[in-house]
């Protein structure tokens, strides 16, 4: 990336619940950071997107992955495990965003090298706040590796 040229960050949201997809979009719209939000609805599609397979041949490499755990076809855990096993993909930060607060889910995801685990708050304002904090932190505060 050349200094001064800052392309829009690419964010991949892996979420099967359309209500949550919309809510995340709304929250991001209200936030200060512009980004391209790509959405896939199941674990298999997430891996296809990341490996530019099938319908996702032209997919960009995301700068950030927001991953739900309860997904059809391939679960969030499986997707996380595959990403972190893959030399090319493991440098992309994965934020697990789940309804669960179960200790076994939290511990399990960190075991699989999730970059962080966040329980989705039920309260709308808190949810918006969480999404915006994720954006600010992962797309502004931290230094990310250059896109491969």
């Amino acid at each position: 990336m050349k200094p001064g040229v800052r392309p829009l960050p690419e964010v991949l949201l892996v979420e099967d619940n359309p209500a949550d997809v919309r809510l995340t979009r709304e929250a991001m719209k209200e936030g200060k950071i512009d980004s391209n939000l790509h959405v896939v609805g199941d674990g298999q599609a997430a891996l296809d997107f990341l490996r530019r397979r099938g319908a996702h041949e032209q997919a960009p490499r995301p700068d950030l992955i927001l991953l739900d755990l309860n997904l059809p076809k391939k679960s969030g855990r499986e997707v996380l495990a595959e990403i972190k096993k893959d030399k090319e993909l493991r440098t992309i930060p994965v934020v697990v965003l789940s309804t669960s607060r179960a200790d076994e889910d939290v511990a399990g995801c960190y075991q699989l090298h999730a970059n962080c685990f966040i329980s989705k708050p039920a309260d709308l304002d808190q949810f918006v706040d969480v999404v915006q904090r994720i954006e600010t932190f992962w797309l502004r505060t931290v230094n990310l590796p250059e896109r491969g």
Partner: protein
Amino acid sequence: MHQLLRRQLKKHAPFGPDEVPDELSALLEAVGAAYEQADFDRGVLERSLDLSTAELKEKNAVIEEQKTDLVRSNDELAQFAYVASHDLQEPLRTVQSYLQLVKKRYAEKLDRDGAEFIDFAVEGATRMRALIESLLEYARVTSRAKPLEATAVDPVFDEVLLALAARVAEEQARIVRGVLPTVMADRRQLAQLLQNLLANALKFHKKGVNPVVHVDAERRGDEWLVRVKDEGIGLASEHREKIFAIFQRLHSRDEYEGTGVGLAVCKKILERHGGKLWVESTPGEGATFCFTLQAVPELPDDGGAS
């Protein structure tokens, strides 16, 4: 003649089995009869032994089956806990968020009734979430049980006080702690037990009176009796059992917050610890919650020999 007798006569007697002298024949007949009786008795014994072995096998099979059932029901409970924490919460969260979004986006289009209806719906969803969380907490007493270990109550109590610090400050409560023992407990559940009892003691204080809670312990044989005594509103004797049932509440939610699970969780924790939990109270004069836990068994002193 019995075979064995016949063989022995052949071996040892100066006469053959078929040449028994008359004077011995009565005796030998009696010996032969004794042999036959012995054979019969042995047969009976063997059959009854076979029978009891079979019975034992059957009983073992039943026990094995019950064990499998128990493991399965435990697994199911753990599974339920997971389902409750995720699958039931998610749709509820969606309901709550979108109601709030409607209220926020369309505030100026809603009249007072509309806004009020949405508030009721949000409140309902919030309460449902609290109930699910409580049910989960109740299920976890079993599904997350850890073995009992010698546990000093004092540091656990410190943690609980830290967790309740905000409420203690808010209520300007005074908590008086006596000397607390070391007991056999699952540490995390002991903390939960103390926290629920203390939170109750803080909650049910008389209006306008700052809560005062005394906590102390007393040795009773192999057990420790721990008392959590408050000076709050107390409860009538007919409610002394009822309060430990899940989702049972004595007060409206306007008066006192809560889902009615705290004491049910306490009861369940003590059940799995082999202890008891009860309340002594006079209405208007406070309540004392008492529970018993096993003391740490003393190692027999054998003079240093191992």
